[in-house]
């Protein structure tokens, strides 16, 4: 089988033994069947079992293996090795505390997600059957519900870097709009109240980094724009 050698530069930090982070240079032989970056990293780990990273589905649906790849956030399992300039530089997602190597502490990211009350609220008595929703109304959720909470977007967002505790960030705001847009949810005005704050929503300056990196092709900026519009309309 055809093989090729690929050069990597990987961020390493194990608080158990490293005083500070360092970059490791490794060359790796890959077979033609090793197409994705995740295949390569799994191979690296077979050689050196101390490299730590998260992964699960290997098909871009679980959101585990987000990392900074040659300076840009993305999912290792959806990235083709051959599309990358060498050495391939791998770092943990920026802006969040590093636990070890490519693993970051996502607590702040999830706290923001939880802060928008990401669940359907409807006070009507439960119908015996499903609640009805027209296909057109359901279409409004497309581009919103598919988020895999990988955090590529929020950790590419300068506003989130500076205020991870105060600014909800693109992923959380996308989720907020997912419930606002759902005809079955009855708490739009509470949801807007929850974001009416100099930081939570309005720290977004439409820099669009989030859109650029989302591996699912979602557009948080657009959702944020729609929430801002609703706030404006509500104000007048």
């Amino acid at each position: 089988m055809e093989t090729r050698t690929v050069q990597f530069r990987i961020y390493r930090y194990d608080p158990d033994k490293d005083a500070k982070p360092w970059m490791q240079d490794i060359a790796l032989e890959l077979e033609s069947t090793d197409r994705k970056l995740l295949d390569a990293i799994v191979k690296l780990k077979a050689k050196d079992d101390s490299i730590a990273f998260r992964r699960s589905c290997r098909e871009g649906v679980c959101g585990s293996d987000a990392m900074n790849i040659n300076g840009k956030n993305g999912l290792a399992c959806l990235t083709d090795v051959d599309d990358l300039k060498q050495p391939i530089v791998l770092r943990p997602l920026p802006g969040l505390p590093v636990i070890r190597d490519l693993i970051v502490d996502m607590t702040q990211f999830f706290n923001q997600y939880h802060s928008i009350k990401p669940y359907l609220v409807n006070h009507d008595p439960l119908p015996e059957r499903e609640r009805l929703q027209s296909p057109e109304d359901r279409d409004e959720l497309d581009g919103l519900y598919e988020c895999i909470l990988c955090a590529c977007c929020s950790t590419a967002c300068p506003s989130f870097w500076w205020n991870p505790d105060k600014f909800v960030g693109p992923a959380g705001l996308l989720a907020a709009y997912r419930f606002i847009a759902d005809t079955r949810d009855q708490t739009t005005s509470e949801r807007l109240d929850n974001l009416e704050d100099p930081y939570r929503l309005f720290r977004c300056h439409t820099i669009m980094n989030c859109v650029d990196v989302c591996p699912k092709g979602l557009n948080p900026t657009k959702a944020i724009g729609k929430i801002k519009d609703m706030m404006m309309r509500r104000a007048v």
Partner: protein
Amino acid sequence: MAVAVRKFDAVIVGAGGAGLRAAIQLSEAGLRTAVISKVFPTRSHTVAAQGGVAASLGNSEEDHWHWHMYDTVKGSDWLGDQDAIEFMCRKANEVVIELEHYGMPFDRLDNGRIYQRPFGGHMSNFGEKPVARSCAAADRTGHAMLHALYQRNIKANTHFFTEWMALDLIRDEDGDVLGVTALEMETGEVVAFHARATIFATGGAGRIYHSSTNAFINTGDGLGMAARAGIPLEDMEFWQFHPTGVAGAGVLITEGVRGEGGILRNAQGERFMERYAPNAKDLASRDVVSRAMVTEINEGRGCGPNKDFVLLDITHLKPETIMKRLPGIHEISLRFAGVDPIRAPIPVVPTCHFQMGGIPINYRGQVVAPKSGSPEVPVPGFYAAGECSCSSVHGANRLGTNSLLELLVFGKSAGETAVNDLRMGRREHKPLPKEAIDRTLARLSRLENQKDGADVHETRLAMQRVMQKHAGVFRFKDLLEEGVTEIMKVADQVKMAQINDKSRVFNTARIEALELDNLIEVAKATMVSAEARKESRGAHVRDDAPDTPEHPDGRDDDNWIKHTLWYSEGNRLDYKPVHLDPLTVESFPPKKRSY
């Protein structure tokens, strides 16, 4: 080593569809519940399910739970327990509607009801013609469902222990289950979770095979923990090979593609399923389609330079339909097959997908095991649901979309039963036995101190190759017998598995080594159970049990309508009867399965 103890009313291991559904039941009942998961809940493999969840809502054409029940019994090749199957099919509408009420973004019909599509093996009027029974959110049903369930748990304030790995089951001398030991990945700390109810929802173990649609984390931990604690594993010889994994990559292409009109073709462009299943064609049951594909390949009609795959063709579908109903598949085939399915067919091969067997449960979600001559006595304090369990609604072969349904139905019933037992039973925790955590500590210290041992990665690969070769889509007497010897050799290596990384912080090498202890239990159970079942049935088809007039499809109903039980200790087998009696309706007697 001193180990901290944390007390809860209930501990649920696993935060996939089954675990999250059970958690809703317990949290909403106000019980102190801990949900432990190796990964953040929405990263569980339920997220990857594509096609849909079965329920006879009848939204676009007439349907009935009794027809669904018939299809499931037939699909199971009469190995399924008919009481559990009736229970599941009757509960389907209720749990799917609940899910809608939780906020699940199902696709909709023009009249506003949930969209339903046809799926393999699901027929109307007791096997007459395919029926639209699969409730879907595009081809991302599992993702939509898992997120909706997680969101409901946020509302219910469920207490999650994320990135904790459960290591061993704690039982006392009466055999009662009192919780689990678990390792916090971030710190390396080991804790005993002491609970009055323990629910396993740890998912499947598809990673015992080399080529699999399963995630890296699907390592059968629940099965390994149960087996080491003396609980038997049921029907582990039955593994479903999904007909359409992307050739080379293993990533799944949902059967929903065929539900929307996709066709399988061989190298000659022939729609070969017309020969194997004149009625249901491409929508025949999965075992039937997978074997037809392997037969085509073995007889030289495969595609590509090595003639080792067939093609899944949707080029005749409207591009709008593909983008609307199968957007995820469009993305997957571009990314993993390098093919735009609007223009060219997708290369596919049968790929290990789903484990029909598991920890034996009854339809109430209680774990049951033989005791004093009775085959099914509940193990006090122990419950299970989802792919790690065997209820057995799938018998020898699962129908697509029945698994997501199983998560909801049995996740809920395990939760309800646990809530009842907790309310009725004793209020205080039974004391933890002194040696409760010894097994765990012994495993950890062995791993810590192992020298000149076996490489984890290489050993896992060896196991996967043995399973793939000796217990694949078609099974051969000689290969199975050799397979038993081979897998026991690998098991000896696993006992000496060694890691180089000894860090306490997020040590994923240690996690993988501990997972391997579980994988190997599942692999042994599979090989030994498969070698012993001397008939063909459902997903288990042997060369020495061919289709004859006396034994249609190689099935031997006189001797083999029984469930296998495998015990880790002594690598021993036992059997128990199939429940042929449903709860309220008449039994469906065995007959030849044709589609």
